[in-house]
């Protein structure tokens, strides 16, 4: 998997350098740089108003950047390339935006023609099957629930057979069951090797779906794999629970290989370690040697939420 991910990075589908967009004096986003590899699911996280949607619209050629450059699906982001870029990508906005008086099939027929899809009838059937809506093709779009509309939006995007799929807050406003269905569909696309740019402020779905994430709050705060971000921001910690407090903990933990320091909090010893695989066995031996009754030793894992809050929690 690691090798596969490395390969993905070498073949950039989206490459962004110092991109920015301002509306008068208001900065939507500034100096944003990142790359998305082929087949990668790239999460773009940030609070409301951070500039996520504006970034999607800019990369989708719907609005023009005011600074920086980008290459999207192999083409430089310029006004002259707008239509060509749009023919290689698909955008699913937060609100799927369906023609409400038209049926699901009629909506898709329109977009199949706009994308120049060959064999549209077959492709529409396949797209509807992919999002489990084959039996709702003749339903009027305006009568569908938000979750179903979101799925139609995904089916519409699949008609384009996009090199890059932009999903803007795909589970926003969905109930848990509908959100789970949407996430499962995205996981299916990921398995099929579709390159996905996913904006969200739901950290659980980013952690579940994304190979790498970028955290944005007008400017880019950090980019990397969720585990890398955790490691960069937080020291790795071993949590030790013993039956009764140690008499001389400093004597037990000082000098143990891999342990850089320790503290006691809420009945647990929290050990800062450089390498868990080295420290954990050594700590266990030291505790046993000191006659401690060990209840548990485990690594404390910081969540992506911890990373997010550390980076922008105070400002959001």
């Amino acid at each position, binding site marked *: 998997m690691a090798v596969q991910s490395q390969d993905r990075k070498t073949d950039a589908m989206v490459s962004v350098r110092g991109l920015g967009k301002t509306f008068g004096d208001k900065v939507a986003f500034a100096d944003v740089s990142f790359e998305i590899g082929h087949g990668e699911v790239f999460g773009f996280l940030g609070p409301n108003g951070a500039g996520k949607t504006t970034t999607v619209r800019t990369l989708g050629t719907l609005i023009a950047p005011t600074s920086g450059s980008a290459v999207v699906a192999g083409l430089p982001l310029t006004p002259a390339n707008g239509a060509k870029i749009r023919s290689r990508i698909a955008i699913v*906005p937060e609100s799927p935006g369906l023609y409400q008086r038209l049926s699901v099939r009629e909506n898709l027929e329109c977009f199949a023609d*706009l994308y120049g899809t060959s064999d549209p009838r077959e492709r529409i059937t396949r797209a509807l099957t992919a999002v489990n809506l084959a039996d709702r093709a003749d339903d009027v779009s305006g009568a569908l629930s938000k979750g179903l509309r979101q799925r139609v939006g995904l089916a519409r995007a699949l008609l384009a057979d996009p090199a890059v799929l932009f999903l803007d807050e795909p589970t926003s406003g969905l109930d848990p069951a509908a959100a789970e269905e949407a996430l499962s569909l995205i996981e299916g696309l990921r398995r099929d090797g579709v390159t996905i740019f996913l904006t969200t402020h739901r950290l659980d779905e980013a952690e579940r779906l994304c190979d790498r994430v970028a955290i944005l709050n007008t400017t880019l705060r950090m980019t990397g794999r969720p585990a890398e971000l955790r490691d960069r921001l937080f020291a790795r910690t071993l949590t030790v629970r013993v039956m009764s407090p140690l008499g001389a903990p400093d004597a037990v933990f000082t000098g143990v290989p891999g342990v850089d320091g320790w503290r006691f909090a809420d009945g647990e010893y929290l050990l800062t370690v450089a390498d868990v695989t080295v420290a954990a066995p050594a700590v266990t031996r030291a505790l046993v040697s000191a006659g401690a009754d060990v209840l548990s030793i485990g690594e404390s894992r910081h969540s992506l939420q911890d990373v997010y809050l550390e980076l922008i929690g105070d400002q959001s």
Partner: protein
Amino acid sequence: MSRRRVLAIFRKEMREFRRNKQVISTMALSPIGFLVAPVIFLFAVNASDVSTLYQYPVLLFTLAMAALVPVTVGAYSITGERGQGTLEPVLGTPILAREFLLGKALAVFVPAVAESYLLFGVVDGLVWVSRPGAVSAAALRPLVLLAQLVFTPLLAWMGVWISMTISARVSDARVAQQIGTLIMLPVIALSVLFGFHVLHITVALGVTVGAALAALDAAGLLVVSAAFDRERLVLGTR
């Protein structure tokens, strides 16, 4: 320019219009006001007083309908997309602005012209059947029929681009209709002036007015294209 994309928008618009009661009722009701008065006049006029019909070619009054129907229908073209949140997805496809606009314009132009020709046919036919002889000869003289034939598409196209320009700038279809009607008033007034013989219809004047309308219609395309700003439409700013 992709014909397939233009037709995709055209077909989609037609499907939406057919299911939009407001559009249907507007198309059905708005011509009535322009048809009733000439029809009553033509049925009331005395055959011995046929010179009045040469003086007042009242059927030209009905040309106002050709100008007004597209304004009321075209008002929905961009505001309708904005209201449904469909602008972003559709503009996110490879479609070019001119393809999008042409598809929408045709979807207003074709039914508006078809309706106008149909109603002209019905009214003219009624006059021809019910008032044979001097009345129908005077009311349906070739110059009047030619004016109906030529001016209808010219006026309709003007109504289309005016309504689309306004529709791209406002968020409410009714506001677009009101502003569009206001802008079209001078054009509508022109047909009234012909109908009531304030302006005397001649071939030379018809050609001049037709050429002016054609020039305005051509310029209108540029106006609509200039008013069409993908970024502004997506962001919802005016």
